[in-house]
C-alpha cells in the first residue's frame, strides 16, 4: 500500500515484457551464433595468411 503510494505499480505490461525476455534472449543467441559462424569461416579461409 505504502509502496504503491510512492511508486506506481502497474503489472499490465508484464506479459509484453515477459515475451520480450524470451524473444530478446533468442535474438541475442541467434546474432551471436551467426557471428561465431562467420568468425569460424574467417579463421578457416584466412588461416594460412599472415
Amino acid at each position, binding site marked *: 500500500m505504502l509502496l504503491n503510494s*510512492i*511508486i*506506481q*505499480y*502497474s*503489472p499490465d*505490461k*508484464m506479459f*509484453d*515484457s*515477459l515475451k*520480450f*525476455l524470451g524473444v*530478446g*534472449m533468442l*535474438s*541475442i*543467441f541467434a*546474432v*551471436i*551464433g*551467426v*557471428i*561465431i559462424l*562467420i*568468425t*569460424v569461416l*574467417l*579463421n578457416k579461409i*584466412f*588461416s*594460412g*595468411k*599472415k
Partner: protein
Amino acid sequence: MEFLQSFEFLIEGIKMLFENGGWKYPVMWAIGGLLIFLAIRFDMEPTLLLPMGFGTILVNIPLSGVIGKDGALTTLFNAGIANELFPLILFIGIGAMIDFGPLLSNPKLMIFGAAAQFGIFFTLFVSSFFFKLPEAASIGVIGAADGPTAIVVANELLGPKSNITGAIMVAAYSYMALVPIIQPPVIKALTTKKERLIRMPYSPKSVSKLTKILFPIIITAVAGLVAPESVALVGFLMFGNLIRECGVLNSLSDTAQNVLANLVTIFLGFTIACRMEATEFLRPQTLLILGLGLVAFIFDTAFGVIFAKFLNIFLPRDKKINPMIGAAGISAFPMSGRVVHKMGLKEDPQNFLLMHSIGVNVSGQIASVIAGGLILGTPLFR
C-alpha cells in the same frame, strides 16, 4: 540598513539550505563525497566516479551557476550527452583498447557473452511492474554493464530531459565500478569449489591479420543488418578496433586508447552529474532504479555462470569449462575478466583463466551493444 540589504544576495544560497527541501543539498554533497571517497580510497573506476562525485557537489550548490540555461555543465550536456556524442566517441577509444585475439582464437567463447545479457531482459521484465515500457527498457540496459550503451539507449527512448536518465547513468557507472564487489559472492554462491578449480589450458590458434581486420567490418555489417539501431554503437566500437588492427594507424590507435578515451571520460563523468540535481535525484524512483540495476548485474553474472554449468553437462570430462568464466560475459571490460581471473588464482595459484575470461568479457561487450540495438529497434519500447 538599506545598505546592508543590498548585500543580502550574498546569503541567498545559504538561506535556501534552511528552506523547505533544503536538506536535499547536503545529502547530495554527501553522495558526491561518497563517490569521491570510493574513487580515491578503493580505486573504484576513479576516472568516472571522481568527476561524477565532484560534479554532483557542483550542481547541488544552491543557485549553482554551472547548471541552468547557460550553465557550463548544461552546455557540455547538450553538446555531448543529449546528442550521444561523448559515449559514442568513448566507444572509439574502447574499441581501440580491445584485443579480439583471444576471442577470434576461440570463437565459441562468444556464446557466454550472449548468455550474460539475461540480466538486461530479466530486469526489463521486473521493471515493467513499476515503470512504463520505454523506462523499463532503459533501466534494463543498466545490465549491459556498459555506460555508453546505457546512455545512448536511455537518451533515445526517454529523451535527455527525462527525470530518470540521471539515475540510470549513475547506476550504470557505479555498478561497473562495483563489479569486483558484486560478482564474487554471486559466482561463489552458484559454484562448488571443485568447479572453481577446473583448469582450462590455453592453447591459442594463430589468427591472421586479415581476419583481425575483417572481423570489425563484418560484425558491424551483421549487427547493423539485424539491428539497424545498433549501427552507431557497434560501428564506433568496431571503428576503434579497426584503427588498432589495421597496422598503419598506430599513432591514432594510441591516441584513441589513451588521450581521446581519457579526455572524453573526464567530460562524460563530469557532465553526467548534470542529471544529479537534488530535486530530480532524491526520489523513491531513484532508489528503485539503483535496486533494479543491482538486480541486472546479479542476474547477468548468475545466468552466465549457470549457462556454463549447463554446457558442462554435455562436455567430456577433460573439456569441462570453469563456470566462473561465464560471469565475465557481462560487458564491464576489463574488470569482469580480471575478477574471474583473480578468483581462479585464489582457488588455485596455477589456474590461469585470464585469456579465457578476457575473451568472454570482450564477447560480452559485443553482445551488450547488440542487446542495446535490439531494444532500440523494438517498436514496443518507443
